[in-house]
């Protein structure tokens, strides 16, 4: 077996050294009645690389890859072009097969990269400090809610109605067990986010207000107004961003007063991957909150010869030191995705990020104009970045399904996101990125026109 270097001669010699008559003598502590004598029945035996590759390729071909369609899905995961260099770097064995950098003397590669990553995220979010990443945007969002409770010692969580429903569901799920009280809502189908309604729900018991920016319908809420209201009641503002490319065009949540900024980093460097692994980003505006943060932090220091070096730090927050008193049970970050993000962001640089954002916005505006010119289609948004909602006068789930027959992946229907809420079913969230060609837009317009005619 190709991954197992021991030969039968090795095995015999080693058993002799150990003084065991056979391999089962080493499994003596496993009760004999439970010990399996042969390979588990019903499961196949080992296979060659060629056979495995073939099998997996057959499975992969049963999926419609985005590259083979006119593609307009977003709602928390975005398709962007990732430079080939990014994949080359993350496949360097020294990055790919390295361990968590607990031994800093032989892990400066990972550590310096994480320090650079934290610095990039902090700047992108307008924050003082970012951590070394979380599982994904939705779990980062929940960790932010939990952190807000620790900071404010309050338990009431106000969720914006336009927070990604899966994110809201994650918060609601976890809160069941921590006894946080969740005040949620549905998104109001109007051209601008309902800030007034949101602000009205904030009270003195509120630990935090959670607002997505841009929101699930693509609208850009005025975070400044919400921050002011939250702070007035002693609550923190948690801003959630699912499309980091947007922050190359619109103000950072930190600038606008958000206290904790979390989000999904997948857009930069990571790719769609059917939902995972993704990259949770987590940052705080005020450095005094650092010790309440979850997750790994990498910090600068010096070695015994005075040379600059980096280490994981403030680990007294973490489970392997604090056990049940830790700020989170998390002990994995999304290290390789953080590397991909950091490499891609370094290749972009400020200029590239701004150009990328501008190109996304240009194409999205174009798509919005052309789509809303279809009879029966109405653009909901007053503002948007690269994603917007159209109302199409029919259950969008049906329409989306129908268009797949023409290899058009038209967007994410609100019915998919809010199955229980019929009032939303005519909404379709359409995302447009630099990977969308004008031809793709025309293809969608023609297909949708045909379907609605």
């Amino acid at each position: 077996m190709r991954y197992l270097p021991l030969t039968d001669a090795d095995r015999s010699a080693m058993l002799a050294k150990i003084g065991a008559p056979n391999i089962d003598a080493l499994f003596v502590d496993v009760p004999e009645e439970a010990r399996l004598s042969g390979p588990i029945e019903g499961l196949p035996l080992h296979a060659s690389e060629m056979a495995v590759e073939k099998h997996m390729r057959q499975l992969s071909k049963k999926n419609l890859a985005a590259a083979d369609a006119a593609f307009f899905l977003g709602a928390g995961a975005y398709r962007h072009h990732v430079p080939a260099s990014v994949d080359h770097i993350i496949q360097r064995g020294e990055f790919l097969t390295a361990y968590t950098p607990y031994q800093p003397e032989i892990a400066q590669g990972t550590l310096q990269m994480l320090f650079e990553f934290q610095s990039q995220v902090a700047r992108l979010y307008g924050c003082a400090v970012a951590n070394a990443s979380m599982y994904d945007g939705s779990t980062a969002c929940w960790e932010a809610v939990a952190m807000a409770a620790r900071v404010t010692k309050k338990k009431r969580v106000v969720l914006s109605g336009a927070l990604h429903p899966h994110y809201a569901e994650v918060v609601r799920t976890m809160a069941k067990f921590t006894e946080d009280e969740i005040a949620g809502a549905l998104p109001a189908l109007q051209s601008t986010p309902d800030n007034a309604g949101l602000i009205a729900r904030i009270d003195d018991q509120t630990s935090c207000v959670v607002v997505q920016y841009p929101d699930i319908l693509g609208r850009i809420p005025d975070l400044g107004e919400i921050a002011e209201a939250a702070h007035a009641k002693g609550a923190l503002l948690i801003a959630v961003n699912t499309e980091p490319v947007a922050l190359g065009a619109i103000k950072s949540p930190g600038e606008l007063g958000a206290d904790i900024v979390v989000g999904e980093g997948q857009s930069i460097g990571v790719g769609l991957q059917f939902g995972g692994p993704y990259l949770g980003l987590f940052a705080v505006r005020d450095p005094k909150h650092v010790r309440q943060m979850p997750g790994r932090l990498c910090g600068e220091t010096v070695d015994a010869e005075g040379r600059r070096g980096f280490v994981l730090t403030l680990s007294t927050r973490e489970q392997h030191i604090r056990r049940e008193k830790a700020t989170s049970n998390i002990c994995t970050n999304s290290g390789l995705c953080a590397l991909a993000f950091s490499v891609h962001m370094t290749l972009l640089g400020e200029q590239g990020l701004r150009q990328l954002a501008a190109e996304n916005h240009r194409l999205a505006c174009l798509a919005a104009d052309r789509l809303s010119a279809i009879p029966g289609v109405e653009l909901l948004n007053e503002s948007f970045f690269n994603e917007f909602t159209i109302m199409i006068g029919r259950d969008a789930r049906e329409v989306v399904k129908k268009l797949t027959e023409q290899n058009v992946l038209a967007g994410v229907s609100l019915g998919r996101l809010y199955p229980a809420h019929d009032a939303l079913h005519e909404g379709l969230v359409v995302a447009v990125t630099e990977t969308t060609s004008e031809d793709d837009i025309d293809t969608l317009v023609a297909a949708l026109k045909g379907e609605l005619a």
Partner: protein
Amino acid sequence: LEEPLIFEIGTSQTTGVDLPDVPSSTSSRLGSFTRADEIGLPGLSEPEAIRHYTRLSRQNYAIDLGLFPLGSCTMKHNPRLNEKVARMPGFADVHPLQPVDTVRGALEVINELAVWLIGLTGMDGVAMSPKAGAHGELCGILCIRAALEARGDAREVILVPESAHGTNPATAAFAGYRVENIPATGEGRVDLEALKSRLGPDVAAVMITNPNTCGLFERDMKAISDAVHAAGAFVYCDGANFNAIVGKVRPGDLGVDAMHINLHKTFSTPHGGGGPGSGPVVLSEALCPYGPLPFTARTKDGVVHLVEEENAEAFDHKHAFGRMTAFHGQMGMFTRALAYILSHGADGLKQVAEDAVLNANYVLRSCDDLLEAPFGPSGPCMHEALFSDAGFAEDTTTLDLAKALIDEGYHPMTMYFPLVVHGAMLVEPTETESKASLDRFIMALRSTAERAKAGDPTLKTAPHYAPRRRLDETQAARKPVLAFDGPCAPAGTPQLSEQGGS
């Protein structure tokens, strides 16, 4: 070797991509939110970026360079086939919210992996979405809590052995439980009688790691499970060490109700310098109904369905306790793990466990004359060999020995864990090391151990030959510098780094 930070060499005008300049006159729908101030993100041209990261990478130790004897962390060979498979466009380039008819192959991957995980563990179902081991623990404990709540049985305590991973108590606390320790026997296993006497109507679950963190199999596992079940509680098994027994024994046969499987430990998805992980949780019949969404179900016609909020009732999964993450879990890790599993097959996975255990016992018995092996006399270990610092010269610590191993060309073993052994050193060679590689490591370990016993002062200052000497962790924590503070480099700044070289 000094490599500057991207902020010291990159400018905000430099870019490694070619994107069009969109005329600023283009109409905008951004409202009043245009970002005007400089963000401060440095850019590098593509050649500069490749060099920066290539050079950085060379300051890392990695599996591709040598043995990684990290007990309980299981650093094994990462096959390149798996990387290739994960990048197939049908897996890498599909969106999680695509209509299900366009992602049948992805669902089949999830389902096929689920079938294997269930088969290998002898359980009834599996929640695939947890993003890592600790996330899986939380998932399992939440299933237990949901099951208890469903029968109106509020319980407050979770019992955890002292030797447990820190994630166990942290998870229990996060799920709202009080944590109490379970005592151990002198042989490094759970004290069954003590456990039985603690069980009662307030105990929701017992979290047990098996094989445990001393590298030993919990011989009384079945008796423990029976006692826990008799007391109306559930058995959570920390599956971090499942690689030691895969194919040899099924946790389901021992009464386990929930167990997470770290795909990177048992099924070799790459560690990536700290993640991403993936922690599916296998569940007993009693817990299955509570597994979180999304779930997958295969109907009699062989079609795989994605069970979400939308259709949970239709698929008889209405008791799901909720959703732990936005999408379906770590697809990229599923494809890798499935490729690994199919490569080994049922026969190969058994061989994996056997070779892992053989390798560990070989290390144990090649060193236990020199290093104290606290549980060595009681019998064989499983996949990892545990030593203590007994016999080291005064002033010489486990840390010193570990750092000296760096100078021998190795990553240190796991140190000071489990907490129950003084100056613990937990060595897990894994099944992907050859005998020759172990012989060489044993030689290095023995020579270092002899120096530790003799009190060789050079150990205190080790490592001497690594890219860095010991780093000042106290300074890092006292005055945290967690982000670069200055502006990007102005254009044309000379790089501080030493260029290239081997």
